[in-house]
Each structure stands twice: as structure tokens, then as C-alpha cells.
């Protein structure tokens, strides 16, 4: 479903990202890359005290602290106190709290349980918490559809603009690395068997990816401001494409609906996960359509998680904002002096959920 093809311009007016790299500081852009050797990448945390009031902090889980901090960083970056609407997205939600509650049930024979774990593990706990914190009584929603959760959240925000229901929508993603999910993923062959450094992810040429996590918030607006990052033109999702030609048609159709062709894409943000089997079509898309464009990879920075496409969007937006591609995300040596005007983020999650985001420079 194509939302906003050739439609109104929508802007990213701010962002706040906490990831396994130093990204929470909006003043810097990946000056160095942190190495992880154990196949699990976990977030580099800011000092939460800078973003959360002490009386609130005490009761919040790590994921809620991360999410609320990222949302706060985003609001400050967008120079806005209260958005008109809040939409969050997660694949697996508050696994840590849910896991703790579940273990109590199993180990304490369903007695003397901690209600906080339950209360803080409903998937909309973060969107509710942000609403409560910034006193936003407007539209509020949470999507939890794996590799499409963030995409649906952005779709929803775009609809709110079409409906003139909102001018500024806070859209954010969150997912955490958790051992229960990791053991499932290991058993299913979704994560690598052999220990692989994240810095060598794309040289590994083995099956499986690395487990990652992160939270990314964006202020999406129908108003351009002097501090806007870029235009968020459109996006499209494809579930379980039947074959590669079908995926190609979906992609070219998406670009065409936005009035451009593959040749207009300057930067191809490739959501490949370092899984030699599941990355196949993403790599083919790059080869078939975007040989001319700079190729950017990011899952060696973050690992794989259901809402990782949000990191890809942040990366694309930041590249458009400062017109520079950091060395650490370039797939190969920079080949041309092409201007950076149009970025396509092409993500896949487990080879099932494909999504395309089209970003443009202001």
C-alpha cells in the first residue's frame, strides 16, 4: 500500500536515538564504532538523569528509561514540548519485564507476584508513559507487528497529516536484546552459531545475524522548520515476496509512484543483516538497481532487531542533514562526488518483512 506517493511533504524535525553505538548525542555522528564480540549488541546508555525526573526514574524499567530518554532527546532536538500525537512501535516489546513476571509465575507457583512487571510490560506502556510525562491527551497508538511495526507507525503518522488531525507526531521504536528471544533465534538459526565481531559482520559470509537492540524517536511534522533534518517522502512494505522479480516490481513501482527511478537514488541504505542466506535479495537489489549509488550498511552498528529499520531511517536522515557519509557505514570506498539529495532505505527483517523508505534533502 502506497501512502503519500507524490503527496504532501512530510518532514523529520528532530530525532533521539539510543543504540549500541554512541548516538544519543545529536551533535556527533558516529565518530567511532564500538566492537562487540559476543553476538549480542546492547545499547550505550546516556545518563538517564538528564532526561527523566528522579521521582519517575525509580519505578521505570531499563527499556522504559531508554525509550523515555530517546523521546525526550527527540523533543528537545525538535524544540517542542508536547506533540499532537504519539505512536510507538516494537517487535517484541518489554521482554525483560514480561520475562521477570513469567519467571515469577513459574518459580513462585503463581503467588506473591510483582504487579509492576505486568503493568510495565503491556506494549503501549511507553506511549502511555510519554503521554503522561508530556501531558499529551491526543492520538496515541502502539504497533507490535515485528518487521512492520515501525513502518505501520510511520504510515499512521502520515495519515494523521492527511486527516489534518496533527501537525507534529512523535513516532518511536523500541526493542531490546533478551535471552529468551536470543535462545529462540539461536535454535532457529536466525543468529550466527560462531562468535562474530560486529565489525566483521559483512565479511563473515555465514548464515544468521547478530542480536541487537535500540530505540529511535522522530518528530515527524507537516511543517518545515529551519532545524528540519530532511523530507520523509514515502514508504512501502512488502510481506513475504514470492520471488525476486516480484520484489523488484514492488520497488520500482514504489519509486515510480514517487516520480523517480532507481537512477535518482544517491544513497542506498541497505538493511542487510549479515546473514548470507536472508540478505540475498537485498544484495541483488543493490546490484540490479543501485550500482551508481553510495551503499550504506548499518546492522554491524546495531545488530538485528524487529524495528531496526528505524535506525536506517535515522542514518539516512542524518546523512541528508549534514551531507556527509561516515566512513564506518560505507560498504565500499566512496566512488563518486554525487550530491546527496535522495536516500532510499531498504530494510528486511528475517527475509520476511521488506520495507522501503524514501528520504529527500530539504
Amino acid at each position: 500500500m502506497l501512502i503519500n506517493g507524490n503527496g504532501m511533504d512530510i518532514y523529520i524535525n528532530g530525532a533521539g536515538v539510543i543504540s549500541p553505538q554512541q548516538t544519543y548525542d545529536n551533535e556527533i555522528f558516529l565518530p567511532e564504532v564500538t566492537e562487540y564480540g559476543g553476538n549480542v549488541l546492547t545499547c550505550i546508555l546516556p545518563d538517564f538523569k538528564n532526561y527523566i525526573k528522579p521521582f519517575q526514574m525509580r519505578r521505570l524499567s531499563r527499556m522504559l528509561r531508554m525509550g523515555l530518554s530517546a523521546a525526550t532527546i527527540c523533543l528537545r532536538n525538535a524544540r517542542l514540548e508536547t506533540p499532537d500525537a504519539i505512536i510507538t512501535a516494537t517487535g517484541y516489546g518489554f521482554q525483560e519485564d514480561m520475562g521477570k513476571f513469567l519467571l515469577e509465575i513459574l518459580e513462585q507457583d503463581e503467588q506473591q507476584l510483582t504487579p509492576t512487571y505486568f503493568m510495565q510490560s503491556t506494549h503501549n506502556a511507553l506511549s502511555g508513559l510519554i503521554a503522561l510525562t508530556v501531558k499529551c491527551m491526543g492520538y496515541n497508538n502502539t504497533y507490535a507487528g515485528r518487521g512492520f511495526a515501525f513502518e505501520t507507525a510511520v504510515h499512521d503518522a502520515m495519515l494523521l497529516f492527511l486527516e489534518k488531525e496533527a501537525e507534529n507526531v512523535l513516532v518511536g521504536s523500541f526493542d531490546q536484546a533478551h535471552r529468551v528471544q536470543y535462545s529462540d533465534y539461536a535454535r532457529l538459526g536466525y543468529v550466527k552459531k560462531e562468535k562474530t565481531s560486529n565489525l566483521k559482520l559483512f565479511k563473515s559470509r555465514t548464515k544468521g545475524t547478530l542480536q541487537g537492540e535500540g530505540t529511535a524517536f522522530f518528530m515527524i511534522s507537516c511543517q518545515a522548520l529551519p532545524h528540519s533534518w530532511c523530507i520523509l517522502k514515502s514508504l512501502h512494505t512488502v510481506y513475504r515476496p514470492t520471488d525476486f522479480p516480484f520484489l523488484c516490481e514492488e520497488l520500482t513501482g514504489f519509486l515510480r509512484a514517487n516520480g523517480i527511478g532507481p537512477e535518482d537514488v544517491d544513497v542506498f541504505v541497505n538493511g542487510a543483516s549479515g546473514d548470507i542466506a536472508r540478505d540475498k535479495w537485498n544484495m541483488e537489489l543493490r546490484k540490479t538497481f543501485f550500482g551508481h549509488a553510495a551503499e550504506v550498511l548499518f546492522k554491524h552498528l546495531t545488530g538485528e532487531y524487529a524495528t531496526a529499520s528505524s535506525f536506517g531511517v535515522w542514518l539516512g536522515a542524518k546523512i541528508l542533514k549534514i551531507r556527509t557519509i561516515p566512513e564506518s557505514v560505507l560498504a565500499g570506498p566512496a566512488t563518486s562526488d554525487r550530491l546527496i539529495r535522495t536516500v532510499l532505505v531498504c530494510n528486511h527483517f528475517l527475509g520476511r518483512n521488506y520495507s522501503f523508505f524514501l528520504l529527500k534533502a530539504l
Partner: protein
Amino acid sequence: MSRRVFITGYGIITAIGNNGPENFASLRNKRSGYGRLDFLQTLHRDEIYCCEIKLSDDELCRHARVPTRAGFSRTTLLGIIAAREAIDSAGLTKAETSGAGLISATTAGGIRELESYYYELQNPESSGDFLAFLDTGDPGEHTERMADILNMKKYLATVSTACASAANSIIFGARLIANGLADVMICGGSEALSKVTINGFNSLKILDRNLCKPFDQNRNGLNLGEGAAFLVLEAEERLGYPGKNAIAELCGYASLNDAFHQTASSPDGSGALKAMQKALTMGGIAPEDVDYINAHGTGTENNDLSEGLSVKALFGDQLPPFSSTKPYTGHTTSAAGSVEAAFCLMGFEHDTIFPTLNFSQPMEELDILPVTELRQGAGLGYILSNSLGFGGSTTSLLFAKC
């Protein structure tokens, strides 16, 4: 662009019936699904009764026409059964179905299976049929599984806003149609009972140990239930199609946040009031045009007073008939919004208001009385349906009879 959105079919499975007609028969006969749990293994079995669907997972597989032991969570199975009934009742062809979007809502997803095989699944040496439940504990898995079985791969989304989830699923589907991005959407929610849900609500001390009594002075909490319901939403242009009959128009809706407390509604009901007002404004009708309210009415101290105050504030002395159908099905949590939407559609089809059960004494703070006897020939033109959830999620749907 704003197109009108119509409901052309629905499907439902709850403790009071495996399909629409069975649910209607139970509602008409005031039959509740409340009773002892037979299928969910919990140590609270003898003290906490729920509204359980009396079919084993294997029986549900047969109803859903999928193989047993193939990793279909109970939530997925309920979803497939209800969505398929919805598709059939709207008379969608195979091509129309695969061209439609699917939005499902859940909180528990496959948590029931995860809690059943928690240790086994994490033991790398283990083997058995349960391995099919690897990586099925999240909400999105059930939507993908439904999409695979129903061959609906064009557009899928999963909503998870606690007890307002299924209402938000319907609203999002309607907005996609209203804005011209889709012509047919299948929207609803599914939720199987689990130890996590029962123990979660129990730890919050909001489960009634007896039958729940919505809007009663002596109400003492909610009863939990399980179920799924899906609606087929279609754009107005499609109503001219041969054999296409709409049951109702979804003419207004609102989704917002109460922004009061993580698990409680604002005591004055200001969130629900705002949502209902917004839905009425969108539908272009006045409060006095509403013929019936299907209340969220869980039977908790907090919900019923807060919601009662909100309807009182909106309607004053002209309060339309209202009731809560939760005593029949239990609180089906993330599926409640679509389960109750299906009941509103049945209300239109049979021009009937289904009464609240177990009510005897009005709340002393408020002089409001729910409907306690079946009302046939109720003259239903407009129905409001509320769903409220943890995290402050507040929704209201407005249906107009076709």
C-alpha cells in the same frame, strides 16, 4: 479525501459461541460463558473462574482447518476462525480477500505457549512438537500466521494498546479506507487466556472471585475471557457490488490518551468523554441521537465510575440505554473492542439491546441504571461502543445502522 466506511461482515468466537449465530443465541438467552477453567493449566483454577472457550487447541485447529502440532498459538487459531467467518459473511471472493489488508490486535499473542514450554524451549537439547512454538510469543507473529493461512499478504499490521487494541485496529483500518489507500480491510483482535494475563490482573487485585457486576454498587472487579472477532470494512464505492449488503456504517471514531495513570482511567472520565464527543462530532450527530451505548463496563471500581461519569457528563439526564456485555464473554482484553463491535452489529441485525447481567444496586455516586432486560424492537439507529485500556488508551466507535 474522506470516504465513508461500511461494515459488510463479521466473525466472532468467544466463550458464548464459536460463531456469530451462537454468540447471538447466548446473548438473547442471557447465557454467560463464566465457569471453571478446563483447558488453561493454572493453580488458581479453583478460585478464579473465567470465560473460557470450551475447545482444546487441537479442536480449534480442526475448526481453523490447520494441522495440529504445527505451532499455531491459541491466539492465532481464534483469529483464523473469526476472520474466516468474517470473510465468508461479507461474501468476499478469494481475489478480494487476498487484495484486502489485515489488521489484528493482541497483547498476549503466543504468551500462553511460551509459558507452557518456557524451560523446554530454552533447553538446546530438548526435542518435541513444542519446538514449533519457538519465536511465537510476540504479538506480530499471530498476524503473520493469519495472513499466511488466509492468503492476505498485501498489507498487514498489528496493534497492541492493551484493552483498547481491537478498537484501534478497527479505527486504523477505517482510516486507510477513508483516505483512499485501501478498499477492503479485515480488522479485529484476538486474545487467548494465559497464566500471564490471569496472574497479571490478579496481582493488580482487580479480578472478581464471583460473577462480575458492571455498574453495580457492589462491583468487585472483572472476569477475564478469551476470544477473537473481526470485521470486514469496505469503502462506500463497493456497496454497489452485487449481493453486497452493509450492516452498518462506521461513521465516527476517536482514539486518544487519557494521560492520567499507567493502569487507571482518570477518575472524572475526561478521556472517555473527549473520545465519545469526538466520535459524535465526526459522525455529525448530537448526543440525543445515540440509541444505545455498549460500555467498556469491566466491573472494576475505577472503570465503571469513571466511564459512568463520562456518559453522565455527555448525556446528562437524556442518557440512552447502555449496558456492558462483559458478563457474557468476560473481559476479552485486546479482543474486546472487536468482540463488542460484533455485538453492536448483532444489535442492529436483530434490533435488540443485550442487557447487563448480575446488576442489582446502582452506584451511589451516580443515578444511572444499565439495561437489565433484553430489549427487542429497540429502534436502534446509532450505537456507541467504548474501549479503554492500560497506558491511558481511550477509544470510542460510532456505528450507524444501514
